C-alpha cells in the first residue's frame, strides 16, 4: 500500500492548530488532481470540518490523539478518508441547522455536518467497533454544479 502512488497520507495530533496543515495538504492534492479553485476550496473546507468535529466530539478536545487523513485518487474520483480512534458517530439523525433557533439560543454549532454534505458529492461515516471510526468524503472531478444538493 505504501508504494501506491495514488494514496497519500497525513497524520496529525488532535489539535486545532494543525487544521491549517491539513488544509494545505488537501489543497495541494486536489489541485494536482485538476479541480478548480472553487472545488479545491470546498474540498479542503469539508476536510477541515470533519477534522474539527473529530477533535471536538470524537476526542472531546484531548490534544494527544491521532487523526489519519488519506487521499485516494482514482479515475475521476477524489476521496479523502479520515480515521480516528475516539467516540463513534452516526450522522443519520443530524438535521440541517436552524439558524434562527441557533441565534436565539446563542448556539455556535450545528453547521459542520450539513456544510460537509453540501460541499462534497458523498459523505459516509462508518466504524469498526473497538477499532476506529472513518469518514469518507468524495468529490467527482467531472461533476457540476460544484455544490451538492444535500
Amino acid at each position: 500500500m505504501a508504494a501506491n502512488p495514488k494514496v497519500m497520507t497525513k497524520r496529525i495530533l488532535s489539535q486545532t492548530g494543525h487544521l491549517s496543515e491539513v488544509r494545505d495538504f488537501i489543497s495541494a492534492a486536489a489541485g494536482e488532481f485538476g479541480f478548480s479553485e472553487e472545488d479545491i476550496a470546498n474540498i479542503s473546507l469539508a476536510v477541515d470540518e470533519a477534522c474539527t468535529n473529530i477533535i471536538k466530539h470524537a476526542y472531546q478536545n484531548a490534544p494527544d490523539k491521532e487523526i489519519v487523513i488519506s487521499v485516494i485518487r482514482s479515475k475521476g474520483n477524489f476521496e479523502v478518508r479520515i480515521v480516528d480512534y475516539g467516540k463513534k458517530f452516526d450522522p443519520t439523525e443530524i438535521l440541517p441547522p436552524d439558524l434562527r433557533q441557533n441565534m436565539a439560543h446563542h448556539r455556535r454549532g450545528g453547521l459542520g455536518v450539513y456544510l460537509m454534505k453540501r460541499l462534497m458529492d458523498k459523505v459516509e461515516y462508518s466504524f469498526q467497533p473497538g477499532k476506529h471510526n472513518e469518514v469518507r468524503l468524495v468529490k467527482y472531478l467531472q461533476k457540476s454544479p460544484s455544490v451538492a444538493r444535500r
Partner: protein
Amino acid sequence: MADFKIHHREGEGVYIIDLKGYLDAHTAPDLETAFQKLLTEKKYRIIVNCRDLTYISSAGLGVFMAYIEDVRKNKGDIKLSNMSAKVFNVFDLLGFPLLYEIYTEEKEAMTKFKTVKAS
C-alpha cells in the same frame, strides 16, 4: 498554524472589525473575545469587514450566530462587508444572507446604520 488577525476601527458611532487571514476552529476564540469586548463596552453597532479574510469554516460562522441576538436586542446589528466570493459562498450555503445584512462595500453598511436611527 493558521494566521488570523483582528483590527479595530471606529467611525461615526460604528465599530468596525477588520478580519485578516484564516478563521477556523483554532482562531475563532479570538473573534469571540473581540465580540465580548464590544458587548462589554456596549458597542452594538458593528461592521465586520472581511476584505482580507482568506478563509472561514463553520467554527467562525458560529461566532456570528452567538452574539447577534444580544446585539440586536440592544438595537444594534452586526453587518458584514467586502467578502470574497469564496468566503461569501460559505455564508450563503448556510443561509446567512437570509438573516444577516451582507454588503459588497463597507460604506453601504455604514449608510444603513446612519439611515436607521440609533437607540
